[in-house]
């Protein structure tokens, strides 16, 4: 059982898509302060679209409230400033920039003070990145690039981190390491995290609450425990 926490992000009746194509057809999710929420969905269910709608990258209808403020009409840069950072699907590291430049680019919306200190802090959390500080990001392994993408997102000092399929293309052992880091960020720093995944085994271990997305809306939700015990979900997303 998870204790009741204050809602950080509330999404109600979210409708979004691309031009005439409607992908999300009334989606509801809630991420509480300090929790790790996982949204499960098959390929094409609309996970990335949900992330893009929250980050303000596409037009959307419905209400999205973050720390009590509506953000349905806000632009991506305002949303970053409000405290939501996204790690895009496929990592999206800037391959021709060095590791350090990638991190500094993550602090784009911030001015001046504290950026150096934050670099130091995330180099502490991700020592591999410190070793490769002046190397181009394109030369990093997949796992390192995912770590870099996360650290880069953290450079904007978010309250909520959105991770779009962080395990994509990574070996299970690397994925394990990745989720360990996310877990630590959640417990040690109080960071709230929303992860979307297709393959849920590892993600569920660190999740407090879970949502199941099917063709544009949520079909099941509950605690990680409840969802793991749901037979239909288990066969579809956990593979046993």
């Amino acid at each position, binding site marked *: 059982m998870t204790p009741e926490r204050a809602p950080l992000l509330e999404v109600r009746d979210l409708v979004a898509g691309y031009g005439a194509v409607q992908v999300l057809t009334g989606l509801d999710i809630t991420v509480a302060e300090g929790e790790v929420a996982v949204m499960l969905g098959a390929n094409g269910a609309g996970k990335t679209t949900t992330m893009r709608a929250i980050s303000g*990258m596409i037009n959307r209808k419905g209400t999205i409230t973050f720390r009590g403020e509506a953000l349905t009409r806000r632009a*991506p840069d305002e949303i970053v400033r409000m405290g939501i950072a996204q790690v895009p699907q496929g990592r*999206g590291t800037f391959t021709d*920039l060095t590791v350090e*430049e990638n991190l500094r680019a993550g602090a*784009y919306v911030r001015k001046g003070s504290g950026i*150096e200190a934050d670099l130091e802090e995330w180099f502490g959390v991700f020592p591999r990145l410190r070793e490769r500080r002046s190397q181009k990001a394109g030369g990093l392994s997949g796992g390192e690039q995912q770590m870099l993408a996360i650290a880069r997102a953290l450079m904007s000092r978010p309250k909520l981190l959105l991770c779009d399929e962080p395990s994509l293309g990574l070996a299970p052992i690397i994925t394990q390491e990745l989720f360990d880091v996310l877990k630590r960020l959640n417990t040690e720093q109080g960071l709230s995290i929303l992860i979307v995944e297709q393959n849920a085994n590892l993600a569920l271990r660190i999740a407090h609450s879970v949502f199941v997305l099917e063709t544009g809306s949520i079909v099941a939700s509950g605690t990680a425990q409840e969802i793991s015990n749901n037979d239909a979900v288990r066969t579809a997303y956990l593979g046993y």
Partner: protein
Amino acid sequence: MTMPIKIRESSPLHWALRVVGVSALAAIAVYFASNAAPSTLGKITEACTLAIAAVSLNLLLGFNGQISLGHSTFAGLAAFTAGYSVNAWHWNPWVSLGVACVLCFALGLLLGLPALRLKGPYLALVTLAVAFVWPTVARKFLQQTVKASTLKGMRLRPPTWTGLANNRVDRALFLFWLSLVLLVITYAIVRNLRKSRIGRSLVAVRDNETAAAVMGVNLPFTKTVTFGISAALAGVAGWLAAAQLATLDENSFSILTSIKYLLALFLGGAATLAGPVVGAFTYFFADDLLKTNAPKWDFLPGPLSKGPVASFLLGVLVIVFVFIAPLGLVGFVKAQGRKLAVVVPPPLRPAPKASDPTAHASPAPAGEVE
């Protein structure tokens, strides 16, 4: 000592190397200024002009990933603005430089708008169309406004404080120094931009638009303004060309000029700071050498002996070179140089105290060679 040697950024050694490099370049410039014939100085001036254009294109294409085949048009617009305003309206040439840059900036912004929706080959096509339309626009302007088939170039008098007279030799010397100064300024603008927060966002947009946007980079603003700045800098090259050419006509800034900018950029290395400068000088003097020696290729069979062999050979050379060193001359040298020495960033400062918000702003303590 292990290879590669590590040099700390902004350490005394790093600064010493920079000073030596800049002094060497300055010494070469002074040497040419005092020894070279006016015709040679003229060639260097032309190479500098090409370099300015290539640097401007590098900002747009190399760092921001937007291709433009229309840069000749920006140069043409600036050259015509200068030539006409100085000759017909007796404007001060320096004022015409400012106005030309503003006009080019505006046209660049305008061309940046369709560029928001287009990528790669489609953007190339739109900018190509602009380059194709330019000669017609220029011809109409010459016919209807200038009422002549050509427009006179802009004759720059050396200012009195330079101590240079208003004769052919001194004017060549003046243009030589002016082109160098303008090249240094253009280079410095692009360099400082690239090293700043804005510059990182330019490369970020090029490497991954989605990731850049979710970090808060305003894509339309960044891309159009980059287009504008790049166009304004290309305008500097055009203005400088107007100061070198006796006459300007509709073919002075054709699509071939844009191709030349592109070749110079890729020969030197796109997305590197020095690449476009090195590329422009290499391209210009290779072209010059081949042209001077063109009669020697008479022995070639058939049409090759009559046609523009020099241009053909230069084309072949550039293609071969792009295969050998796809990152350009500078990219190639950098890759080799990294085996010998690398520049590493200074150590990070510990977290600044809340009471001292400027603590992190001062440069890190200089490190030594490790």
